[in-house]
């Protein structure tokens, strides 16, 4: 049986995240960060007029106001236009813990106020039973198809989410979490709602990817309705175009109440520095 010995080749490839940090960096561009965010740009817009920095962005993710420059990760498709034009103000980061429990957190990740504490408590209430295991139903509400690859990757031996009690289920009746990919299209609003209604309480909705968080670059058209939040109450927001498997896993673990927003267990370096701990290349074991 050649397959049995093949199965043993290459040893363990599975990430140790979240128990241990994972250094999947390799220059992977998970998000964009504003450098010197508290300072305004000389060419900043006056009230009502977009500034020079804001105009760099095709999705309106860059916002300039009197307290500086903000980047809404819920709108960012990580295209790099801002980084290319203004490397002094924007940088790619390989920080894949990009999920958040409120839409606002994607704009201001450092805000950790009472409202967020309430959100977290409410979610914890609903997810108490899910800490050991969670069943996920995926629905594509208008994706470009890449999101499905990244969601499916969670079951590969590298991420192997079954080790964390995370399973995909065919039936909404057995699902705890509805994972929605893609911009909400007019034609998917009804099927999406029906799937949600068929799920038992308590249930959680995770918007996977910038398109489902905000509509991304595709919205608006005559056929899109923008964020999935226009159709269902969203609990966990995972930006990315598409979101990487680590970002998705981070979002699911947040939903299970197993991780804080920032565990620092994933690489948070600015892209360009070498990775140290990647089980796939074995660089940590040199």
């Amino acid at each position, binding site marked *: 049986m050649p397959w049995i010995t093949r199965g043993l080749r290459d040893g363990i490839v599975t990430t140790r995240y979240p128990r241990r940090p994972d250094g999947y960096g*390799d220059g992977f561009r998970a998000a964009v960060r504003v450098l010197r965010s508290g300072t305004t740009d000389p060419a900043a817009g006056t009230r009502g007029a977009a500034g020079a920095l804001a105009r760099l962005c095709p999705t309106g993710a860059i916002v300039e106001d009197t307290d500086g420059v903000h980047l809404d990760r819920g709108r960012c498709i990580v295209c790099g236009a801002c980084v290319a034009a203004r490397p002094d103000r924007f940088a790619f980061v390989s920080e894949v813990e990009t999920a958040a429990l409120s839409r606002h957190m994607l704009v201001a990740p450092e805000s950790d106020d009472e409202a967020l504490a309430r959100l977290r408590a409410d979610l914890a209430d609903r997810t108490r039973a899910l800490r050991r295991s969670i069943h996920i139903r*995926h629905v594509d509400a208008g994706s470009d*198809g890449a999101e499905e690859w990244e969601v499916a990757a969670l079951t590969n031996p590298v991420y192997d989410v079954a080790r964390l009690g995370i399973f995909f289920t*065919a039936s909404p009746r057995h699902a705890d979490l509805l994972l929605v990919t893609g911009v909400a299209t007019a034609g998917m609003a009804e099927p999406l709602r029906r799937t949600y209604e068929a799920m038992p309480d308590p249930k959680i909705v995770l918007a996977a990817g910038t398109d489902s968080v905000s509509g991304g670059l595709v919205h608006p058209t005559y056929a899109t309705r923008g964020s999935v939040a226009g159709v269902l109450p969203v609990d966990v927001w995972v930006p990315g175009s598409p979101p990487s498997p680590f970002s998705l896993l981070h979002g699911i673990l947040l939903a299970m109440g197993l991780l804080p927003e920032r565990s620092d267990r994933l690489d948070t370096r600015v892209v360009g520095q070498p990775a140290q701990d990647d089980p*796939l290349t074995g660089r940590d074991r040199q």
Partner: protein
Amino acid sequence: MTTATTQGVDPDVLAEAVAAQIADGGRFAGLTASALAGGATAIDALVAGRAGLVRLRAQLPASHRTYPSLTPLVPAAAWYEREIHDLFGLVPVGHPRLDPLVLPLADSGSVRPRPGSPDDPGEIQPDHAALPPHVRGHGLFTLPYGPVRSGVFETVEYLLETFGEDIPHLHTRVHHKHRGIERRFGDLALADGVLLAERVEGTVSVAHASALCQAVEAIAGVEPPQPAQLLRVAHAELERIAHHLDSMVRHSEGAGQAVAFARLTTHKEKVLRLRARLCGSRFGRGVIVPGGASGPPLCPVDDFLGDLAHLSRSIASDVGALMATPSFLDRLRSTGIVSPEVAAAHGALGPVGRGSDLAEDVRVSRPYGAYRVLDVDPAPASATGDALARQQVRVHEIEASVHLVEQALHQLKGSKGPWRVEGAWTAADGSALGWAEAPQGELLYLVTMEGGRLVRVKPRTASFHNLALFSSAFRGDIFTDFAFIEASFGLSIAGVAG
């Protein structure tokens, strides 16, 4: 270089003109429409002939809502005419079954999106009453599968009309996830239009960005510098490897080959990580820009090639073992047969075509970019027409793609660019076709620009063209083969629904 030519045709004789081109050895390559100023509509039929692509353009004045259907003479036009009907409200007279495909709307007075038109159609609500009802009869069942399906899949609905275990007919409904993406191009600046093209079919972003950029470059009459051309090829071939591995993964999963599934899905992950090392994106996004590429490889080329060689040996070993596992081959052999006659009549593309005796690969038949100077080694065609034949094509192509990446990157080693055409060349006017051999087959972009703006962009995906063949691959097959046939087609619903 082989090019595309345009001929004006009267709408009344468009069908005959296309049929004549096909009788002359041409391959039907698509049909699309564009709204013109003043409410007129242009209908473009595309035929791939020996001398390149021919575009037959028929113009319908605003007062005309009908034209004689092509489908009776050219059956492969059936889905295209359904799409044109949905998007423009034009009625092809004589079409055998004009069911909605991407946007169900009632025929009387509905506002249609009319891509190419500057008028904003506002929000359009699909009208499901416009869809044909499920067929019911004595002993006849319609089994809906989807639109929300078990597993992590794109949204699509299959309606299986059946008398029992055999499948007499399959209807495919893709309208749920229609995003209206063609109209969105009209809102965007050129560079952002390329980002949108990357999202038309997100698993083949590189092919889409390349085809759009090549059309734009043809309009402006510029050629990207050679280093950029080589980099485009490297990324396009990595995309092909990832895509074909994905098809292998789905086959091994469907066949219950647990170890092969685990191995291949790990290889696929490694390919995506390699791609991210080269450009920062697991899907090669942001690499291709109008006039070239965004910049040099982000990692040392020698390290990259070393890791690629190591990975490709593992892939070849595991794929070789899988393709020698009898229980696996039994599931693919004689499954989902597309006969060479059916494939030829339809002009089947990519691995689906090559598995059914149609060898054409546009990297060879209409070479573009660096494919003109690299050794492509296209997959030989097979006349078997089953899922196994399509997989054998993919096995060959994975290996050939590795060689192409190696060739391209070897030539690129140490290159300091230039990476793109500089200057204000993008303020161009005109219309052109761009193409690429995507992993699923020939991808075409029909692009019209005015003053540097994209006024009409029509991606004609291999997924759209080939999905119409899907139902003919099912005749006589049993339900359990469904997953294999679907995986062996390897299509993207996003690229069909638009």
